[in-house]
């Protein structure tokens, strides 16, 4: 009896995945293989101007919210705006992660030797990060993310952005050197 439930459920789940994966393959272009050759700025298309403006605005909102005599309507409006900016910053953190992960995948595909352990760890990390990101976005949309987290987010995104950019440059430079004389596929 259990088999009559388990196997049809497996059938539905697997068929859906097959349809999705086959569609993705049909619609795919060689984007990831090209990612390895793209300049860092293209891999990190975050709009720097907009980003720093967002950070500046967050600081302003925080200062304004610390004022004691603030009408409730104004406070609500500020919270809304703060959450919107925080969401944007969170998304950029996710984009940084995804791009770096994708870049390493592209490098792994064209490498002679790939570490089992590191690939496995990176895969687990990407799954874990994906879950955490979705939870954080959910908390933010429900208004469950406390105010001080946003201030921390502001600092963290700035720092990690710099880290990622430095590393991406290193990878990109190495790739450019090696890809000048060769090409992928």
């Amino acid at each position, binding site marked *: 009896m259990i088999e*009559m439930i388990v196997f049809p459920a497996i059938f539905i789940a697997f*068929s859906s995945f097959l349809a999705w994966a086959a569609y993705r*393959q049909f619609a795919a272009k060689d984007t990831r293989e090209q990612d390895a050759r793209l300049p860092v700025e293209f891999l990190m298309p975050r709009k720097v101007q907009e980003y720093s403006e967002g950070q500046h605005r967050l600081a302003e909102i925080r200062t304004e919210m610390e004022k004691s005599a603030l009408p409730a309507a104004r406070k609500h409006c500020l919270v809304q705006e703060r959450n919107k900016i925080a969401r944007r910053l969170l998304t950029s953190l996710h984009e940084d992660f995804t791009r770096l992960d994708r870049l*390493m995948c592209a490098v*792994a595909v*064209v490498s002679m030797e790939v570490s089992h352990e590191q690939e496995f760890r990176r895969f687990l990390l990407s799954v874990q990060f994906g879950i955490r990101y979705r939870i954080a976005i959910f908390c933010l949309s429900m208004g469950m993310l406390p105010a001080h987290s946003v201030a921390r987010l502001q600092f963290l995104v700035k720092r990690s952005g710099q880290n990622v950019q430095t590393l991406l440059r290193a990878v990109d430079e190495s*790739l450019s050197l090696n890809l000048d004389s060769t090409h992928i596929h």
Partner: protein
Amino acid sequence: MQLSSSESVLWFATIGLDVVLAALIVRLRFLFKFRFFSLFIAISSVRTIFLWLVYYFAGYASSLAAHAFWYSQPLLLISRAAMCVELCRLVLVRSRGLWPIARLVLLVTGGGILVYAVENSTRITFQIPQFVVAAERGLELSISSVLLALLFIASRYGIRIQRTPLLLVTGLCFYSLVQMLNNTLFQPWTSNHLHFYSTLRMIAFQLTQVVWILALFQRDSVTEQKLVQVIPLVYKENSEKVLETLHVLDDELEEISRR
């Protein structure tokens, strides 16, 4: 008992599609590129024609027909498993660094489910139909899991699968999934379910054959892709640093969520 007219139509359609596939494999010179696929089509064509002759002369419900069907079934299953291995190798072998990892993942996936299949089929009373059906269900699940794992790896690493192998993979995986379900829902050794089992099996196989015919007509399959060029040391030098950075990003996100 003879085949009904609707069953005869299904049998003729299967034989016809098998012949078309075999002719295309020879005509388009896929014989050596997809050896196990070609072997599977050859076995399937011969078996289908042989079974039809047995059904026609000895009758559908005769013991000769039952023996001919169930004893030839394992041969078909083994050739299908070999085809699955061939497709995985064809898709991933170009990436030399990734291939050992992918091979390990696919072996663990397929092997794990095969262990279940063996355990499950040996639990069943040793009668050929029941045993073969249980073993087939496990093997079909194993094949579909391996092929889906292959598609997942290709998707994660951005490996673009050429149209021909992709359609072959899609067709094989679809047929394996339908057969897994078919073997669960209908017990083909009981005469009540035999008609449904047989009809669903043949329709699924015909759909698969059509997908495979489309696969053989894909143009990009004829030209060989250039081999992957090696980037020495880039992965080695950067993977650890990148992993650390990803860890930092993940920790930061955790920190945000926790506060």
